């Protein structure tokens, strides 16, 4: 098969017409161009990262018994999501000490872990106020997921909470230093 090597384009030794001896090879370069053009297009059009989702289950609304389950207030960790990416948290409802924290791993995550050790069967109540954003909600749900909290509820920011939060109503005014709680 030496005759078909790339170097031999002219007719062979036997004197056959040159036209019949033309190489059967086709120049593939334009095909390569085309292939890579298409390749580039599809590569750019592809989104490999599929959207992730966070599952959320709310309690049924149309149940007979409208009252929400009662819990001992001493076992309740209240988390108020406030504007400006601030979190205020307190345990119980009677004259609680309100603390401020943030969404970092040394902030609310530490609070959750510490309080979970202190309080047996802790219930977390998330109360986003009207200044909080969707991102705050997703962040706090994510932190609960990371710390493995399963007993939590998304509840309204009530007037009682407003009364507790009154000293913090104006941002920056009369804010207690955060942290230092054991």
């Amino acid at each position, binding site marked *: 098969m030496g005759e078909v090597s*790339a*170097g031999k384009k002219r007719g062979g030794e036997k004197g056959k017409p040159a036209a019949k001896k033309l190489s059967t*090879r086709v*120049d*593939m*370069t334009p*095909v*390569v161009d085309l*292939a*890579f053009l*298409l*390749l580039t297009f*599809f*590569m750019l*059009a*592809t*989104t*490999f*990262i*599929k*959207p*992730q*989702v*966070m*599952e*959320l*289950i*709310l*309690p*049924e*609304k*149309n149940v007979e018994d409208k009252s929400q389950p009662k819990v001992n207030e001493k076992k309740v960790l209240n988390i108020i*999501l406030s504007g400006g990416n601030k979190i205020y948290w307190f345990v119980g409802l009677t004259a609680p000490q309100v603390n401020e924290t943030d969404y970092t*791993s040394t902030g609310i995550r530490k609070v959750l872990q510490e309080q979970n050790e202190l309080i047996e069967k802790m219930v977390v109540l998330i109360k*986003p*106020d*009207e*200044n*909080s*954003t*969707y*991102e*705050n*909600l*997703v*962040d706090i*749900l*994510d932190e609960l*997921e*990371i710390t493995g909290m399963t007993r939590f509820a*998304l509840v309204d920011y009530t007037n009682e909470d407003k009364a507790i939060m009154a000293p913090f109503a104006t941002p920056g005014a009369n804010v207690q230093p955060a942290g230092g709680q054991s």
Partner: protein
Amino acid sequence: MRKKTHSSPLVDMTPMVDLGFLLVTFFMMTTQFNPSDLVPVSVPKATSEIKMPESNNTVLLISPEGNVYFRMSEVKNMKNLAKNLNNKYMLGLTDEEIAKFASLTGIGIPFGNLKQFLGLSETDIKNVSQPGIPKEIGQNELFNWLIYSRITNPDARVVIKADRKTPYPAIKRVMDTLQEASIVRFSLITDVKSKT
């Protein structure tokens, strides 16, 4: 004697073509053209690793201003939804308008203006800024959208795609509506974040 260095500078391109088309085929198979969103939203990040199902979705797109836009993932479902709504609310949509409805990537128009909106030309429909589906108490059309999406496709899963800056009260209104419609299991679309 021929010189050995006198070989042709042409390279055989065939294997490269093979490779090229293999990759083209791969990318063609894996590509899915996601419908672009009606309003650009940047979803919040979370560590959740659950993948969003590819089909049977009902997507509630919530803009940073809190406007809600509605979309079902299959054209067939969108079409049936339009037919159902048309029958129920006497919207008087023609087949052509129903087809137009089904081709949209999101709808945020009150029922009252739907026919007028679908009567516009394709370019006008793109340029018109849709006000979002009314969700206020007393005029909660989102509730009806959800009910009829359930009737249209009982397997559809509701997915909320909201912007990270959306104020919470708007989200709460949507969640309350979902609860009223007895849709208590739903998903929130998030972006990937590594665990820190």
